[in-house]
C-alpha cells in the first residue's frame, strides 16, 4: 500500500485560506488504511479547518466527501465539485495529481506521501519499496536495499553501521538484515558483488501500458 500522513495544520491552512468553499476529498483505499484520508479523517480535518478559519474570522467553508479510489477514473466520476472553488485532497500524490488532471479547480495536498510499505501493527508502517522499476529483491533476501538502506547502496553494509543499526540511528541496517537472512537461508549471495543499479528502468518508464508491452514502454 501507499503510506501517507497528514500534513501539519499550519501547512494546510495557508494553502486554502484564500478560497471560499473548499471540498475536502478523502480516499477510501491506501489513505484510509494509513489512517490519514478515510471518512473519519476527512470529518476531523473539515472540523479543524472550519474551526481555524472561524477563529481567524475568515469566511472559508469546508465540506467533506470520500471517493473509493482517487487514482481511478470511474471513481472520480462520483466526485461532484460544483459550487466549490478548490479541492483539498486527502489522497496520496497520485490521487492529488489525478483529481487535478480531471477537474478544473485548484487542488491541494493535505497529506504527504511517504512510501510504499506494509503495516507493522496499529498506526505503524514500514517502507518496503521505492518503485525503482527493476526489482532486485531476489538477490537481497526480500529486503529492499534501495528503500531500507539509508544510502540505497547495492553492496553493504557501509562503514556507518554500529551494532546492526544504521549510521542514521533511525533503522536497522538493511545490509546486516540482508546478510543475516541470506545466511540463514544458506544462500551465499552475500558474497557476490551487486551491480550498479539500473536507474534507466525508472527514468524511461513514466507510463506503463500493458497493451504495448515491455519493449514499447521502456
Amino acid at each position, binding site marked *: 500500500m501507499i503510506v501517507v500522513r497528514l500534513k501539519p495544520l499550519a501547512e494546510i491552512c495557508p494553502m486554502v485560506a484564500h478560497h471560499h468553499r473548499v471540498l475536502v476529498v478523502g480516499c477510501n483505499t491506501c489513505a484510509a488504511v494509513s489512517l490519514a484520508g478515510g471518512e473519519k479523517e476527512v470529518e476531523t480535518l473539515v472540523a479543524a479547518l472550519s474551526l481555524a478559519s472561524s477563529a481567524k474570522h475568515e469566511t472559508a467553508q469546508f465540506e467533506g466527501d470520500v471517493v473509493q479510489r482517487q487514482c481511478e477514473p470511474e471513481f472520480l466520476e462520483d466526485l461532484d465539485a460544483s459550487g466549490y472553488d478548490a479541492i483539498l485532497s486527502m489522497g496520496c500524490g497520485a490521487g492529488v495529481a489525478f483529481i487535478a488532471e480531471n477537474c478544473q479547480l485548484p487542488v491541494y495536498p493535505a497529506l504527504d506521501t511517504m512510501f510504499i510499505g506494509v503495516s507493522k501493527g496499529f498506526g505503524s508502517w514500514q517502507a518496503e519499496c521505492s518503485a525503482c522499476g527493476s526489482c532486485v529483491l531476489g538477490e537481497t533476501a526480500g529486503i529492499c536495499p534501495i528503500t531500507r538502506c539509508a544510502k540505497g547502496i547495492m553492496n553493504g553494509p557501509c562503514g*556507518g553501521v554500529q551494532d546492526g543499526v544504521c549510521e542514521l540511528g533511525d533503522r536497522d541496517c538493511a545490509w546486516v538484515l540482508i546478510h543475516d537472512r541470506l545466511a540463514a537461508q544458506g544462500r551465499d549471495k552475500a558474497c557476490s558483488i551487486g551491480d550498479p543499479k539500473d536507474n534507466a528502468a525508472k527514468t524511461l518508464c513514466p507510463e506503463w501500458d500493458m497493451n504495448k508491452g515491455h519493449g514499447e514502454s521502456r
Partner: protein
Amino acid sequence: MSLREALEAGRFAVTSEVGPPKGIDVSAMMASAELLRGRVDALNVTDNQAAVMRLSTIAACVHLKQAGFEPVLQVTGRDRNRLAIQSDLLGAASLGITTVLALTGDHVVVGDHREAKAVFDLESVQILKVIADLNAGHDMTGHDLIGTPEFYPGAVVTPGSVPLEPQIAKFEKKIAAGARYFQTQAVFDIEAFAHFMSGARESGAKVLAGVVVLRSARMAHFMNKNIPGIAVPDGIIATLERSENPQQTGIEIAARFIDECKEVCDGVHIMAVGAEHLVPQILDAAGLTEVIA
C-alpha cells in the same frame, strides 16, 4: 618511493590524512602536511568529510603534490554519480594523482547541507570496480579511453565492526573488486587485530592499521560512544585515567601499538585529528626514525 612501491617492496608504510579547508586558504592544511614531511609515505585527502562541504579533494591533492607530498585521493559516492566519478578520476590521473581510496561516504544528513540530494549511485565496492575498468583502458560501460590511467586503488575496513561477518563479506568484495591496500578504522586491541589479520593475510591485500592518538580518557569514551566500529579497551581507558600526563600516555600507547603492528600488518594509517605535531614523536618512539623520501 611511492606508497605503492613501499607496500609492494614490503617496507612498513605510514600514511596520515589532511582535510581540505572550507574556503580557499589552504595554508593551514599545508602547515599540517608540513609537520608530517619526511615521516609519512602518503597523505589521504578527505572528500567533503562527514558530509561537510569543503574545497575540492582533487584541488587539495594538487596543492600537496606540488609541495612534494604523495596525496591519496579519497573518492566517495555521496556527491557524484557514475559519470562524475569516472570523469573526476580521469581528471585526477591526468594531474598525476593515482593513489586513490574508494569510500561510500557519510550520509548527507549528518553534514552541514542536510537537505542535499544524496547520490550514492555507486558505493565503495562499485567505485573500486570502476577504477579497475579505467585501469583496463575502458570506462564502466566498455568504451575505450584515450590514454589509460594507472591507479593504485585502496579501500577501508573496520576490523572491530559489530556484527563482524557482513563487514568481512564486504572486505572480500572489495578485494574481489580490485582493492590493493586497506586502511582500517582505528584499532587498539593488537590481539583482536592480529586475529583479523590472520584471515586478511590470505587475500594478499596490504593492510595499514588505523591509529588514533588518544589524548584523554574523555576522548576515548567519546569515540567508543560515537564512532562506529571503534572500541577502546577498558584497560587503555583506565591507564589514561590514572595518568598525570594523558597526552604523553596517549603518545606512548600509540607508539607501542605501531611498534607491535610491524609484526602484524603492512603499515599504519595515523589519524591525528588535530595532533599532527605529535606524529613525529610517536613515530620516533615506535622506532620508525628513518626519513621517508
